[in-house]
Structure formats: C-alpha cells, structure tokens
C-alpha cells in the first residue's frame, strides 16, 4: 500500500470528487466536511511522500505495471514532493475556510462547488506528481476547467472574467499541446526522463527551438508572467474569496513548477542558458513584470485587485530567481514559492473575512475594520509585512537570496538587483497604506461575528509565515536540496 501512494493521492481525489454528488443528495451539509476530509488525506499522503523522498531518494511509480518509457510513470523527487506538500496544505486550509465562506457568498450550491473544489485540488496535485509530459497536459486541463467554473460563481462581473480566462487558458493549453506534439514527433517518447536523454543529439534543429518556445509561452500564460498576465486581475478580484485564495496560493505556483520542469529536466540547462538565451529573456521579462505589477497596484482601491497586481509582481520575483542560473537565486526563487503561497493565500482569506463581515472591498470603506476582528486584522498585517519583505517573516529570506543571487549574475544582474530593491521600496507605497487603514486606523463599523472555521486557517497561515521567517532552516534544507538536484552543476553557492 505504501508504495502506491503516488497514485493514491490522485485516486483518492477522483473517488472523492465523484462521491460528492452521492453524499450531497443524501444530506447537503455533509459536502463540506467530505471535501475537507479528502484534502486532509491528500495532505497527509503528500507529507509522507516528502518524508520518504528525503529519507530514501527519488520515487518512481509505474502506472498499470507498464515499464516506462512505454507506460506512464509518476516520478517524485525533492522539488515535486515540496510543491506537493505546499499545494495540498493550502488546499486543505482553504477547504476549512470555505465551509462558511462559500455559504455566505454562494448559498445553496454546495454540491457542485465542492465537487469542483476537489477536482481542482486533484488536478493541481496531478500536475506535480506526474513524470509524463502528456499527463501533465491532461491534469492541467482538469484543473483549469474546474477553475473556470469556480471563478464564474462570484459576483456579476465574474462571468466575463471567467470567459476571458477561459479563452486565454485554452490558447495556453493548445500551445502546450502543440509543443508536446513537436517533441513527440521528433523523439517518439512522452516520458520526461526519456525525453531528456533523447533530446541532446537533436539540439541543433529548429523544431526543438519551436517546441521550447511554444511550451514556455503556453506555461507563461498559465503562470501569469508579465505581458501575459491580463486574465489574472479580473479573475482574482471577482471570484469568491475562498476560490481566490486557492488560485492565488496554488495555481500559478504549479504553473511555475511545470515551467521549471520543462526547462531544467526535459530540456537540459545548457540549452536554455548557452545555446538559446531563454533564461536571459525570461529574467528581463520577469524584471519588467515586477515593476509593472507594483506600479499598477498602487492605483487600486479595491483590496483584492491590489493583491492581484501584487501577485503579478511577486510571480516576477520567482521567475527572476529561477532564471538567473545560479544556485543561490534558484534557492531563493523556490523558497519564494513557499512564502508567497502562504502569504498571498492568507491575505486573500483575510480579505474575504473583511468582505463578508463588513460588506465591502473598498479600502476607504474598510477603514479601521481590522480592529473589530483582531485576530484577522493582525494576521493581515503579518501577511502584508511578509509580502513587503520585512525581516522575521518568510518573505525576507527569499527576497534576500534572489537579490544576492542576481548580483552574482554579471553586470546586467546588478542592474536587475537594483530594480528589485527599488521595487521593494515602491511596494511599500501600497502595502503600508493598506495595512495602516485596516489594522491601525480608527473607525466605527457594524461587524458580523466571524466564525472560528474562518479564522482558524488565517491564523494558522500567519503563524506559519512567522515561523518560516524566524526559523528558516526548516524549509531551506528541502529547498536547497531541490535546487541542488536541479542545477547543481551551475556556479554560485
């Protein structure tokens, strides 16, 4: 049973998702605990997988007993297991929060919503677990379809936001499919490890270049990298708050994980750094995204929209860290995946509480709202401080590593590091007023009582943020090992 855990994490999700209608037809109130149970099981299995990979090395599971490269293989190494634990953990916390939150915002539709929730979680976990590149496309589409439907149950403008997201998501998935097709036609295999063995002799051909371009562009749309991010603000703003939190915390990170996999495992690092300077281009684009996201966030009065533009900026940080091609920056980038998930997910959850209790998302109307719900207000302050990169929170170490790593990257690396630090200062211009208005100002507000199930996950995520900030050795071990495995031969240290 233990060795079947890589596939059980998906099978449990699928079985759970299709049991939900049966349970919902019996009693509607049981849907939410069932969703929490399934995501809890996935979280426990993912923790166990991380432990096993740290102890025993990479895991490889053959689906159907067929040997790879003929069969589908689930391959888990440290990076996989780390992202698995992160995604499953955020999904579980948000599912506890979603019980009351979805009940306030979208009453009466529990049955389809929780089915879609479990399917979204399963789809994202499937992207992380799989070692076969077409399986990645299938799970990507499962997750995306669930996301389109979940976003569309928000307020009136969420319908158009979801439609635009669907058009862009389909373009990106089709580009990914086309890139996979070109790679398959050239090599004849779909397994990621096998592709990495067969591709090096084909590197001179333009087909591989086109395939890489298609895959990178397709995955960049999913990750909301700077010029291709236009679906993100609308989708995050108008979705229900639990859905915003889950998408912000996990969906884009899984896209970044897939980008790392394609660029470093399938197509080896020499190609993307030396032969075709994809990493170079990505680092400039990411730097542009960092600045653009911050500039656009300053002008927003709607908190969720401000957080969405801030997400665009932070994703730029992660891609900058990953694409600087030395170990220090990559460690910082992957660590920032963890810290940004926790902080942004928690921030959206806190904003959801504020929206439900006070009925508005406007920064002006929410003046002093944090004082009426003290735990949530303090947690929101912690998240915002972490996003700005203040020491003792989880955001500080990852940003420091990215800046240090990019300084080591040559002359233009220093220029990028200056842009990063300038952006940190710029971002205070929108984080500090938000925090000030919500946490520290005075104001009279009617407050609806906030249920414990909504406050619990927010406080837990805030505690985790501070914990990873004060004791950074815990995730740093895992992330350091992951970036060693990915790019160990690159310079820097």
């Amino acid at each position: 049973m233990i060795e079947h855990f890589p596939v059980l994490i998906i099978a449990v999700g699928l079985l759970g998702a299709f049991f939900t209608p049966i349970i919902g037809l019996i009693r509607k109130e049981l849907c939410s605990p069932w969703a929490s149970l399934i995501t809890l099981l996935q979280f426990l299995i993912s923790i166990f997988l991380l432990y096993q990979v740290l102890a025993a090395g990479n895991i490889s599971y053959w689906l159907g007993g067929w040997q790879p490269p003929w069969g589908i293989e689930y391959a888990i190494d440290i990076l996989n297991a780390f992202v698995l634990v992160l995604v499953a953990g955020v999904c579980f916390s948000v599912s506890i929060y979603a019980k009351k939150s979805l009940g306030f915002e979208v009453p009466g539709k529990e049955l389809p919503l929780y089915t879609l929730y479990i399917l979204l979680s399963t789809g994202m976990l499937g992207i992380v677990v799989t070692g076969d590149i077409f399986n990645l496309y299938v799970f990507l589409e499962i997750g995306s379809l669930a996301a389109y439907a979940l976003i569309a149950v928000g307020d009136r403008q969420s319908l158009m936001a979801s439609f635009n997201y669907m058009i862009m998501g389909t373009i990106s998935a089709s580009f990914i499919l086309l890139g996979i097709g070109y790679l398959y036609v050239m090599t004849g295999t779909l397994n990621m490890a096998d592709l990495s063995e067969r591709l090096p002799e084909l590197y001179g051909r333009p087909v591989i270049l086109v395939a890489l371009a298609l895959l990178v562009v397709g995955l960049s749309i999913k990750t909301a990298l700077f010029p291709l991010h236009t679906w993100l603000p609308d989708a995050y703003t108008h979705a229900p708050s639990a859905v915003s939190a889950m998408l912000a915390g996990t969906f884009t990170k899984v896209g970044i994980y897939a980008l790392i996999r394609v660029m470093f495992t399938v197509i080896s690092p020499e190609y993307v750094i030396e032969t075709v300077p994809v990493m170079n281009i990505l680092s400039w684009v990411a730097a542009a995204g960092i600045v653009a996201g911050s500039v656009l966030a300053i002008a927003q009065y709607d908190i969720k929209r401000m957080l969405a533009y801030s997400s665009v900026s932070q994703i730029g940080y992660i891609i900058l860290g990953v694409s600087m091609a030395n170990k220090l920056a990559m460690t910082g980038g992957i660590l920032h995946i963890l810290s940004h998930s926790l902080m942004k997910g928690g921030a959206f959850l806190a904003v959801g509480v504020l929206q439900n209790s006070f009925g508005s998302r406007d920064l002006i109307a929410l003046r002093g709202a944090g004082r009426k719900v003290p735990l949530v207000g303090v947690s929101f302050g912690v998240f915002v401080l972490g996003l700005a990169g203040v020491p003792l929170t989880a955001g500080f170490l990852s940003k420091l590593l990215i800046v240090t790593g990019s300084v080591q990257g040559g002359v233009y690396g220093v220029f990028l590091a200056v842009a990063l630090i300038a952006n940190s200062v710029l971002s205070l211009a929108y984080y500090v007023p938000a925090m000030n208005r919500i946490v520290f100002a005075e104001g009279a507000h009617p407050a609806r009582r906030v249920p414990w199930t909504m406050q619990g996950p927010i406080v837990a995520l805030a505690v985790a943020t501070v914990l990873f900030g004060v004791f950074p050795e815990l995730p740093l071990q895992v992330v350091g090992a992951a970036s060693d495995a990915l790019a160990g031969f690159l310079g820097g240290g």
Partner: protein
Amino acid sequence: MIQDIIFAKYNYIIYITLMTIGFYGMIGKRNLIKKLIGMSIFQYSIFLFYISAADVSGGTAPILLKEPAVYVNPLPHVLILTAIVVAVSTLAVGLSLAIRIHREFGTLDEDKIIELS
C-alpha cells in the same frame, strides 16, 4: 524544391491555416459565440496536426492482423481521444458561461458587456 515543401508537407500548411483562422475568430470577433467557435477551430487544428503526423505511408489501421503488416502509429490517436474530450468539456463550460452572460446582461456582444459592467 518549393514544390517539395508544399506538396510533401501539405498537412502542416493546412493545420497552420486553420489555426490562424481559429485564432482570429477568438480575438477579432466581438460576439461570444463566434469566439467559442474560433476556440473550437483552434483546438481541432492541433488535433489534425497530431493525427496527420502519426501516419505511416502504406500503413493500415492499427488493429492486429494475423500476418505481419505495417501499422499506422496508434499512440497519437489515443492522445487525441483524450484531448477531444477536453475540448468538448471546455466548449460545454464556455457555452454555459455564454448562456449565463446572456441571462445577466441581455446581450452577447463583448463591447456592450464591458460597458454594462
């Protein structure tokens, strides 16, 4: 030389033409249903590419016969089966969204919807 490229690889030219038509439909048209039709054409053109790339000249259908024969490559067929299911599901989600948008806003024209919201 040029004839070689055009006549030997005509499947690529066809699929790229279809893809461009679908892409234009998705972006250039204002009506939501036309956008969805463009999306469908875009996705189906990619399936045509896969299946046309799977053809082995002189091959027969990939069902085992008694005597040895040359078969067409069956793996892309299976992959495209999955991808067709995905495309149909996406179209279903898109159509449901279009119906709800029509119920909420009363129109299916993208510019008018942006004005109204």
